């Protein structure tokens, strides 16, 4: 057997690939569910119900999807330009750090001014965090996979240091956590008596905006060219280094914004466990979406739904809740293979 590149990928195949991948993942994980002794179909039914079966379930899924959309966009934007940013987790924390520093009462501004300021600052902090590895890449050819990965740990230690030091909440009873952001820096709720907040709108807006930029503007045009073939882009006279750095700022900024939105929309203050791996899940989201900015929304909602649903399901059945992550991981791996089959066909010999 060997793989042969296809000349054309039918649109249907591209759209069908994620569905096929998810179905395959569900089928594979059915083995695990069956092993627990739980009835598989009922378990998956409960999963669906827990993810989307009620107003509450839906808002929870969307709440969890919000940061994932942003980190997913961060990964998609970077990966399209072949900038392998594995550091969204660290950038997210940098954004959150900026949010609690500026939003914690340091700036005395009305909400309509404070919120944008905090968001821009958070995005800038996230962007600056990725700028370092990007500069090392374009200047010295240092592999950004490793540098961005390492920066995650450095940032986390930095946050830990600040939370036990300068930023420690004097009212926090000694817990390593920051003081909460002021009320003016809080994102309004979207639906009463739920956790869903307006951060979702920001995320959706950015996803649409990025899609427009990607397809309609010179910026997007340059990004795509540099991502697909940097040498040809440079030859044609495009500012490749600038595009790379710009992409880094954008990608890091999106991840930083995810941190801001988690703090200002949900948590209110910063702790070391603000993100249960949103930065890493963003990569999964981006891959499931085939790096398409609008697809990211769907993928993020899907992953959030799996997680929230599996979590609810595991409480009603003797299935450990770790099944959620197993499902997500399996979906990702299946998606990789499905994506391959849209680009290649299998041939004998």
């Amino acid at each position, binding site marked *: 057997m060997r793989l042969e590149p296809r*000349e054309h990928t039918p649109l249907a195949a591209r759209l069908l690939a994620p569905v096929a991948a998810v179905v395959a993942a569900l089928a594979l994980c059915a083995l695990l569910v069956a092993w627990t002794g739980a009835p598989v179909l009922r378990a998956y039914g409960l999963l669906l119900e827990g993810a989307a079966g009620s107003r509450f379930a839906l808002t929870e899924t969307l709440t969890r999807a919000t940061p994932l959309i942003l980190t997913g966009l961060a990964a998609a934007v970077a990966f399209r330009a072949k900038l392998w940013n594995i550091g969204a987790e660290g950038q997210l924390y940098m954004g959150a750090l900026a949010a609690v520093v500026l939003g914690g009462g340091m700036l005395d501004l009305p909400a309509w001014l404070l919120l944008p300021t905090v968001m821009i600052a958070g995005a800038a902090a996230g962007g600056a965090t990725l700028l370092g590895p990007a500069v090392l890449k374009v200047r010295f050819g240092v592999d950004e996979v490793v540098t961005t990965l390492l920066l995650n740990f450095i940032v986390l230690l930095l946050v830990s240091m600040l939370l036990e030091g300068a930023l420690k909440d004097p009212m926090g009873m000694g817990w390593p956590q920051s003081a909460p952001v002021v009320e003016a820096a809080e994102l309004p709720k979207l639906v009463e008596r739920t956790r869903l907040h307006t951060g979702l709108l920001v995320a959706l807006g950015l996803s649409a905006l990025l899609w427009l930029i990607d397809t309609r503007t010179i910026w997007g045009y340059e990004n795509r060219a540099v991502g697909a073939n940097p040498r*040809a882009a440079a030859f044609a*006279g495009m500012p490749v280094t600038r595009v790379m750095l710009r992409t880094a700022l954008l990608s890091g900024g999106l991840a930083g914004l995810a941190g801001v939105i988690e703090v200002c929309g949900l948590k209110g203050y910063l702790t070391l466990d603000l993100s249960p791996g949103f930065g890493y899940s963003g990569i999964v989201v981006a891959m499931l979406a085939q790096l398409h900015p609008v697809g990211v929304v769907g993928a993020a909602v899907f992953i959030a739904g799996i997680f929230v649903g599996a979590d609810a399901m595991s409480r009603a059945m003797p299935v450990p809740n770790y099944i959620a992550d197993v499902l997500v991981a399996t979906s990702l791996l299946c998606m990789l293979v499905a994506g391959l089959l849209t680009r290649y066909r299998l041939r004998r010999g």
Partner: protein
Amino acid sequence: MTSPPIVLRLSGITKRFGPLVANDSISLTLHKGEVLALLGENGAGKTTLMNILFGHYVADEGSIEAFGQPLPPGSPRAALAAGIGMVHQHFTLADNLSVLDNIAVGTESLWRPRSDRAAAKAKLLDLARRFGLEVRPDALVGDLSVGERQRAEILKALYRDARVLILDEPTAVLTPQESASLFDTLRRLTADGLAVVFISHKMNEVFAASDTVAVLRGGRLVATRRTAETDREELAELMVGRALKPPTPTPLEPGEPVLTLSGVTVASGHGRPLLDAVDLTVHRRQIVGIAGVSGNGQTALAELVSGLIHPDSGTMALKGEAIGNADPAEMVRRGVARIPEDRHAAGLVGAMAVWENLIAERYHDPAFQRFGLIRRSAARAYAEEVIEAFDVRCPGPDARTQLLSGGNMQKLILGRTLAHGPDLILASQPTRGLDVGAVSYVHGRLLEARAAGAGVLVISEDLDEILALADGITVAYHGRLTPVLPHGRVSVRQLGLLMAGHWEILPEIVDAA
């Protein structure tokens, strides 16, 4: 007369890449001690055929027999075991490993607890001595010259006791002198009973070295001839399929200078500079050809004129105006049309549409954008015009560029660069890999631009291309350029000597001119 035994028999080999038939039921035989030259245009399917023989590719149809035994398909290992050795068109050596490692890898059972390097080295040195192939077993391949790498490649095959040796364009990167020594070696090998298949585009080599010639065209075997019983004209016609009538330049009076390099040096970071105090002037209505074996600074020169790199010392001027560190965009603005040597890697973004590639050099132009938003319909309309004017065969402006054939890609680049009446044209390997039709189209366009007043700088490894186009010729060697020698005042033999670095003959040529 009984012919020597058959060592290799290919029957009905067919290979398709998608819709393309690279090999179309080819059958060939090779005898012991025979040298078979495989001839054909770019893309005729020569490398593909040899790759099938060596097991890199699996044929869709057909079979191979080596020494009377069927050869299992798709296994270089089996090919090696059957005594077939191959020197690839592009070297297959690992730069970070030593010559000995490169040669010995895979020759021992993988599960031996220890490599027997001493024995391997002894065997290698013995072979080297026997066939006069000087090597340094412990040197890193990355430090070797091109000639040394070539020898390492051949030794790789001999080390495995190859009885059939395939050489895919072995002389493409060698100086005429290095080539001569290679053919010396081949003679010794064949005297030893080895059979050789060698692929070449160079007629003189075919006549100097081969016993038999096989000609491929469009994936088909169109003829096999005893070398002694054919001639150049017949082979050329077989290759191309019709008699050749290349475009002939009409003499023109050169105008004022468009490109002037004086004392330009580009350092390489270590060792010899890439360009070493180069002086060069290209005038309007003049084509200057740069000849030379690859790796002598041509790439650096092309990058310099493209705006990708900048001189470390010396100056570059366009139309009499000194330019500092102009980038590619600046060069385009100043009227330089640049045709890159590698159209896939540097010329086009394959994943993007034809129209997107056509505006790649001027997307900032208000014609194509407003407030940073791309005017897509304007760009498409423009693309339609260029496609029409330059006869680019493609489904339309929205087609993905990857899907175009090599010749049409080159026309696309010509369209992108020549459509705006450039003052200077830099053409690097403008016809590499193109079929004859496309070649004469490109040559015609370049000559047209010259007639329209542009100065043209052609960099080509193909001496025939330079001889066909250039008004003046300069030879690159070790980063230096000879003065521009008027076409017709310098013989092919002299050019060969210059390409090999024998610049002591320069005074006699210049004096004669």
